[in-house]
């Protein structure tokens, strides 16, 4: 049994079919990366997983249990184990860094504030942001905000962590600090699904890589396969184009 199983999932925005029969799975602690051209549906797949975009067909199992996205309780439970980090960080602008990280544990999970703050400071240290605990998001650089967003996601102790192009909005120098942060998480047993255009990084951290195109997964395999001997021409094209950049 896989930790996360996506079976024949379809999704659409109005008439536009964005996901067509997507099947993919991740074992516990695995790092699965999604690559593919813009508009191929990578973000949508992550949004479907966490219940921000409805699926129109197919099923998703987490820990062997089918997720019922129309059931509020079920959704709440799912989001208790799963967290997502967005390209645009989406930190709460009206809260400082510490509060961004502690709000969910304190207000939603009802943990004692002191415990939550201790944990938050540990997490901030882990992402290298302990100095900025009192700062507000608009006082931070993109890379710093993104690291806080990662700390916020970790504060809920997720078993599954989704990353959606978390470095795309960042300057080249900032990319490394965020990637280092994610890399440091890969051996903690958290199952991860990472959408990224940083091919060197994908290749290094992933256990498997899935290539998406036009709403379908056209190839899945270990990084060595995808990057060195892709089975599909489309994958070869995409990878070579992106690597030659």
């Amino acid at each position, binding site marked *: 049994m896989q930790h996360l199983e996506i079976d024949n999932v379809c999704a659409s925005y109005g008439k536009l079919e964005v996901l067509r029969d997507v099947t993919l799975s991740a074992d516990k602690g695995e790092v699965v990366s999604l690559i593919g051209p813009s508009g191929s549906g990578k973000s949508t797949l992550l949004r479907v997983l966490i219940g921000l975009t409805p699926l129109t067909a197919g099923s998703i199992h987490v820990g062997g249990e089918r997720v019922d996205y129309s059931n509020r309780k079920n959704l709440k439970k799912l989001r208790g184990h799963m967290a997502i980090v*967005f390209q645009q960080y989406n930190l709460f602008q009206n809260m400082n860094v510490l509060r961004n990280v502690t709000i969910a544990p304190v207000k939603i999970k009802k943990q004692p504030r002191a415990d939550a703050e201790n944990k938050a400071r540990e997490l901030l240290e882990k992402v290298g942001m302990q100095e900025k605990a009192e700062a507000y998001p608009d006082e931070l650089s993109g890379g710093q905000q993104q690291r806080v967003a990662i700390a916020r996601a970790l504060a809920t102790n997720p078993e599954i962590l989704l990353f959606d192009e978390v470095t795309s909005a960042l300057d080249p120098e900032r990319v490394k600090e965020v990637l280092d942060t994610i890399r440091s998480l890969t051996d903690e047993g958290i199952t991860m699904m990472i959408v990224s255009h940083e091919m060197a990084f994908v290749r290094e951290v992933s256990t498997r890589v899935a290539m998406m195109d036009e709403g379908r997964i056209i190839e899945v395999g270990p990084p060595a396969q995808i990057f060195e001997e892709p089975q599909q021409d489309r994958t070869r094209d995409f990878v070579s184009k992106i690597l030659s950049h």
Partner: protein
Amino acid sequence: MFERLATEAPLFFNIHNLVFIGQAMGRTLGMTLIGCGVGFVFGLLIAVLRQTTGRLLLPLRFVAIAYVEFFRRIPFLVILFIVLFVIEPLMPGTSLFGIATVAVCLLSTAFLSEIIRSGLESVPRAQVEAATILNFNTLQTLTMVVLPQSWRVILPPATAFVVMFIKDTSLASQLGVIELTFAGKILVNRGFSPVLGFGTILVCYFALSYPLSRFAAYLEKRLAAS
């Protein structure tokens, strides 16, 4: 004309008249603040209601939209009359001040709900999504994320709106509420010159309205910059 002013002025500004005008000013302010305060609460409810998407609340949303669209298109004077004619037979003891205040509430609810709604809508969807995936419920998202971020968009026009209403309450004089305008009429009827009577009243309105409109302008600048 000026001679008349000069001879009347000392008579006009006696302690009795000043207290009378002061009380009237209090009623003008009272109608405005109570009306807009209540209007803010109901306006917030309507604005939040209009943000919901559930099918269950659809009829309520419809009523809310109809309410807002109607009341923003009816003159305050007409609303005053309708409220008067409806309340008088239903609750005979109601004071005129109370009736006028109800009319203010009805109208300010409609306008303030629009101001609040555009404030709520100014908060990016992504902020709401970030809260949703952290398992915030609707109320928590509203109070912890959306409202704190929309004050800066809501407050300047809301304050400017209160300034508008200070002036609109002058129409309540028609009902017989002894607010500033009616006080002016009474004084003029007692024989004081209209220039003195209404001039003083205008100054009183200005004293209420100007600081508040400066405050609105300040808020606008201050909150837009940050």
